[in-house]
């Protein structure tokens, strides 16, 4: 346990110091991937621990991302002016639901609350009917598709296919400034570290035990006098909030949020990061996110058409040969014969 704490401390130190030694391009990638990892941790919680496979985390990612992007567009447009894309679409006044996002405080709250409430509501409606497993995964997938289609169709309000982009500064700091970029990297890293520690505590609590128990035998848990519903709803809401925070940070980092970043394919990619790293392990989720995304960057620049095949193959190999992912393989080397912690099935 002590050695583990030391190892985490070391990794954190290496990441904090990254701006000192990493080249600018790699550093900007690292910052973005660490932001992705926050969403991945949420998936590890709901899928790896609680057995709920969501193929629609992009929806919550988008809620966080768009909440921030709306604020940035309004701040950039100046008082009384409409955001540029609305003018191009011929809109003459701001939709009422854009109005609250002028306030930085409301925006900040919305980044946490919108995805959290949406996720809780979805989980409540679906799990109350005792829908689970593959059916749940399909519902979330359909939701991701519907959300992306909706955003594209409402171009005058949402920026449509192009999304929201062209931000100049955030809360008064110029986005292109290198100091802002550096601060953003550390804020991302700090958020990830706090999330990681928080989830570790959560998993060690009785709540974590119950989540595992519910995955193992939901009915058994019910017949031990527990109502599984609030446990699942709370876990799903936490994962939703984490996806939203991730979306906001990535939007800042890339300077854009668009349907291409949260639809069906990106939602599935998030699950692949976690599967590759090891879904039952928090560090696996972070590791998998970094591994797959750096791999994507490398493969895409060397062989532009190959990436989807590579990631598909990686996913198939992990699911069939190493259900506990990279972390499981590493554990298997250290303690042969004890590597089978995660059941090979994707959804229970």
């Amino acid at each position: 346990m002590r050695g583990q704490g030391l190892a985490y401390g070391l990794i954190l130190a290496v990441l904090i110091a990254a701006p000192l030694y990493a080249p600018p391009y790699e550093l900007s990638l690292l910052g973005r991937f660490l932001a992705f990892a926050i969403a991945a941790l949420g998936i590890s919680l709901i899928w790896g621990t609680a057995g709920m496979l969501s193929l629609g985390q992009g929806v919550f990612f988008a809620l966080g991302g768009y909440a921030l992007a709306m604020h940035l567009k309004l701040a950039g447009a100046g008082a009384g002016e409409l955001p540029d894309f609305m003018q191009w679409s011929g809109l003459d006044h701001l939709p009422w639901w854009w109005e609250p996002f002028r306030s930085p405080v409301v925006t900040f709250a919305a980044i946490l609350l919108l995805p959290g409430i949406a996720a809780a509501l979805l989980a409540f409606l679906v799990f109350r009917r005792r829908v689970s497993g593959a059916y749940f995964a399909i519902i979330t997938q359909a939701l991701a598709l519907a959300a992306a289609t909706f955003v594209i169709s409402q171009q005058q309000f949402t920026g449509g296919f192009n999304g929201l982009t062209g931000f100049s500064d955030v809360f008064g700091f110029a986005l292109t400034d290198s100091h802002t970029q550096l601060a953003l990297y550390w804020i991302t890293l700090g958020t990830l570290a706090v999330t990681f520690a928080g989830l570790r505590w959560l998993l060690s609590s009785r709540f974590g035990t119950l989540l595992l128990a519910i995955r193992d035998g939901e009915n058994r848990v019910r017949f031990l006098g527990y109502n599984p519903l609030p446990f699942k709803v709370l876990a799903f809401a936490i994962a939703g909030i984490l996806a939203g925070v991730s979306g906001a940070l990535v939007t800042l980092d890339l300077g854009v949020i668009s349907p291409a970043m949260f639809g069906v394919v990106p939602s599935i990619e998030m699950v692949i990061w976690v599967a590759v790293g090891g879904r039952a392990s928090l560090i696996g989720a972070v590791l998998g996110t970094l591994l797959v995304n750096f791999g994507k960057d490398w493969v895409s620049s060397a062989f532009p058409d190959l990436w989807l095949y590579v990631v598909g193959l990686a996913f198939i190999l992990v699911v069939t040969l190493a259900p506990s992912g990279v972390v499981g393989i590493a554990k298997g080397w250290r303690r042969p014969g004890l590597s089978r912690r995660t059941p090979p099935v994707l959804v229970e």
Partner: protein
Amino acid sequence: MSAALLEVDHVTVSYDGFKALDDFSFAMQPGSVHVLIGPNGAGKSTLLDTIIGRVRPTQGRIVFKGENISALPEFRIVQRGICRKFQTPGVLDELSVEANVLVAATRDRRSWRSLTTHRSQSERDRVEEVLDTIGLSAKRALPAAQLAHGERQWLEIGMVVASDSDLLLLDEPAAGMTHREAELTAALIRSLAGRHAFIVIDHDMDFVEQIAAPVSVLHMGRMLAQGTVEDIRINPAVAAVYLGRAVQSV
């Protein structure tokens, strides 16, 4: 009758016209032990399913401590003080032996109260006591999946006992156990009688004899006979049912 712990009041459970329980009535006092036997399909498991809320009565009602529980959600029925061991061992495989018992022993089962790593002294004591009783103290850290079949049965019995419910329903607790293990199980039930009431289903007459409790025989969803093990052994109607002959009269 008012002091009854459990009253099954004219309960009918029918599946597409097939009556698994047919106008069935049954009552038991706090702390008492009852054994249910009967051929396959007699309605024994259906009776336990109906009490615990897994199956809802088509007609009639289940009254527990004076409250009609027929329509309560399963987890509420359990919270009222009934816990069941299922026929196929229902332990939580990925959890350690100790965590299995702890989950069952937790009194406050609300989700927001689980956001803690703290265990109260009384819960810890209860877990220790149960682990001792079922003889799995030394294996507390093992995942339940790694236990032998008999040990899994014991663990689930331990979980049901740990829940400290007033009524414990045991569906074939000795299935797959060695003779010695079955003896110990019967002794455990005898020693806990009084503190808990039990309904035990089993087929093995040796085991039933060791429990030394009143026996009820179910057949086709109805009560065929009630009495001591000896009464049942010499009852011609019971013999006829078990030998597969037609019963002239019930």
